[in-house]
């Protein structure tokens, strides 16, 4: 496998660059490649095409890269930490927490703008994760992966139910749906500037703990025997997942499937060494979300309705995941869910 890595890395980086370029080229208004180049490197704010590229398509592409990379890396960390192939950021209560805070804000503070909603969803995600971890560690016998998953589902159920109740009682309807399904459409530079520190720290942190994660996948006992402080590694990992997913949810709403799927695909190619899995997941996640977003822009025209990027990630991801699940009966080798 060692020899293949540079090749795989080159292919993935190449794909990512192509995807970024396509994402700048494709859109409702046809803009030539030369104009895109000019808009990036000799910008003229008098020309509308240049403004479209710099203030609409470029931030959207950057956001796609950040969100895709964050979700995929968070998924890889979760799957390694819980030794569960089905773990995804969703079970930590981050998504429900963010959605809950946003719904609450829509009810109590209807004038809240984009910026406030983003900050609130970070707060909500933190609250959700704190609830799950806090309640999980309260219990006798400590925080086992299965217990974490169960507590996560229970907390999600409570928060999701309250959110649903609010939505029905206050007749929020499709407003809330549109906000959650917005994806990276309409992302502004300000949003990215707000969230970049968080996401950047998360990604760097993930790279830093990658070797420890690899050891952790061997099981708690082995990891401890090899001299790892499993408790603090898991705590750090959870903190990093919070940074990554909190940022991603705030930027683009809950985008499903990337966190669950990308790590599987990457592990399939590079094996279980997390020094390769983490950066690989980041690159593949970014490329996948870019492609999905481009697809969503294409699909909107014939369907005459907004196509959320989550629909596209599912469209790309479901068949591949099915293939993986059916091809390898050992896909669940992490043990019991």
């Amino acid at each position: 496998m060692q020899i293949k890595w540079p090749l795989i890395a080159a292919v993935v980086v190449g794909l990512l660059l192509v995807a970024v370029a396509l994402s700048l080229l494709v859109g409702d208004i046809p803009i030539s490649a030369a104009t895109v180049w000019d808009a990036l490197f000799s910008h003229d704010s008098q020309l509308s095409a240049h403004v479209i590229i710099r203030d609409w398509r470029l931030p959207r592409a950057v956001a796609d890269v950040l969100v895709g990379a964050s979700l995929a890396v968070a998924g890889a960390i979760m799957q390694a930490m819980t030794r569960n192939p089905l773990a995804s950021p969703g079970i930590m209560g981050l998504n429900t927490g963010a959605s809950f805070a946003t719904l609450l804000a829509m009810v109590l503070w209807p004038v809240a703008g984009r910026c406030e909603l983003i900050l609130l969803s970070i707060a909500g995600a933190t609250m959700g994760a704190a609830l799950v971890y806090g309640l999980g560690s309260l219990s006798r016998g400590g925080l086992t992966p299965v217990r974490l998953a169960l507590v996560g589902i229970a907390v999600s159920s409570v928060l999701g139910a309250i959110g649903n109740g609010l939505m029905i009682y206050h007749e929020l309807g499709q407003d809330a749906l549109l906000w959650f399904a917005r994806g990276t459409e309409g992302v502004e530079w300000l949003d990215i500037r707000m969230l970049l520190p968080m996401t950047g720290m998360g990604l760097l942190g993930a790279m830093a703990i990658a070797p420890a994660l690899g050891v952790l996948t061997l099981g708690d006992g082995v990891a401890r025997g090899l001299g790892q402080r499993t408790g603090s590694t898991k705590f750090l990992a959870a903190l990093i997942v919070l940074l990554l997913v909190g940022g991603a949810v705030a930027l683009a709403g809950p985008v499903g499937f990337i966190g669950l799927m990308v790590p599987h695909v990457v592990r399939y190619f590079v094996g279980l060494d997390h020094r390769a899995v983490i950066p690989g997941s980041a690159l593949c996640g970014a490329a996948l979300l870019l492609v999905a977003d481009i697809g969503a822009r294409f699909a909107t025209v014939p369907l005459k309705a907004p196509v959320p990027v989550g629909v596209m990630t599912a469209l790309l991801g479901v068949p591949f995941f099915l293939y993986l699940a059916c091809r390898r009966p050992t896909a669940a080798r992490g043990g019991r869910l």
Partner: protein
Amino acid sequence: MMREKGTVPIGAKHPSGRSGKGGPSPFPARRLRPVAVLVLLTLVLLATAIVSLDLGSVQLSPRQILAALAGQGETQHELVILQLRLPRLVLSILIGVGLAVSGVILQGITRNDLASPDTVGVNAGSGLGMMFLLVVYPTAVAQSPLLLPLGAVAGAMAMTALVFALAYRQGSVLPSRLLLVGIAVGFGAQAAMLLFSLRMSFSMYSYVVTWMSGTLAAGDWTSILLLLPCSLLLVPLAFSRTRVLNVMSLGDYLAAGLGVSVDRQRLLLLGVATMLTAPCVAIGGHIGFLGLAAPHLARRMVGANHGVLFPAAALCGAILLLVADSLGRHLFAPVEIPAGVLVGILGGIYFLYLLARTKG
């Protein structure tokens, strides 16, 4: 008897000598307590049912309720009791039992704590079937109200069949593959539902959201007639598989070694669980958390022996849904909070409490 002492589960205080006629049951030590729990749960269910009949905007005395039930009350009281409150009471119990029993089956055959009816695609399929009808054939749906539940049942069956087919390999359905496939298909269905919901009118979307949160507001005797045959047929069938499920909890190899035809029984039980859930979901909406929580609640009360786990879970499910539905009608009186919302909140909180209190 002495040899069984070593196998007493933690927390069972009774000496194992009680299990005199226990025979080959793998769970010998817990005889007395589960029965007491079952009796207690039945009493709670009865009490909840009585309170539920009493709650509502029309105040009735117990005597008036009894008279109405016997068909000798005033016309208005009979209308309230027999046409409004009683159907919902019966429906809550039927749906609660159905979802809880199928949850027990699914957690049993997959040996997975997180399995529930929605993991094999029942919820996704029913939602998709219903939304498809609403968006593509809105006029037909408006003309015949029975079309929607039928569409939901058809969707649920189709989706579960798809999940089975994709997970089926060489005569058997492996639990791990079933769950993976179920999750993947569920994601796909969710995406499709998102597309549908963005194309709906505001009022239609509100209706769908209410249904998706799980509500019994549309409950009447017709829906009970749809549901009752399924429950009467399938719940006893599930109860008759107690021994098979107990043995299967030891693992596929041991179960096969003990003479259970694992693959066939698993397919049969999967079929039972689906057929039981599909009409429940079609009528009551996605009260999915019930199917996950009720078996867990019951297991933490009576242990893992399916002989007592089945009735205990069924009672838990019925009580939980009944309480949620009654409270939902009553709490914010003119506006009705869907039962599913309250099941999520109440069940979730109690579930968290149990998780915190018990070990492992």
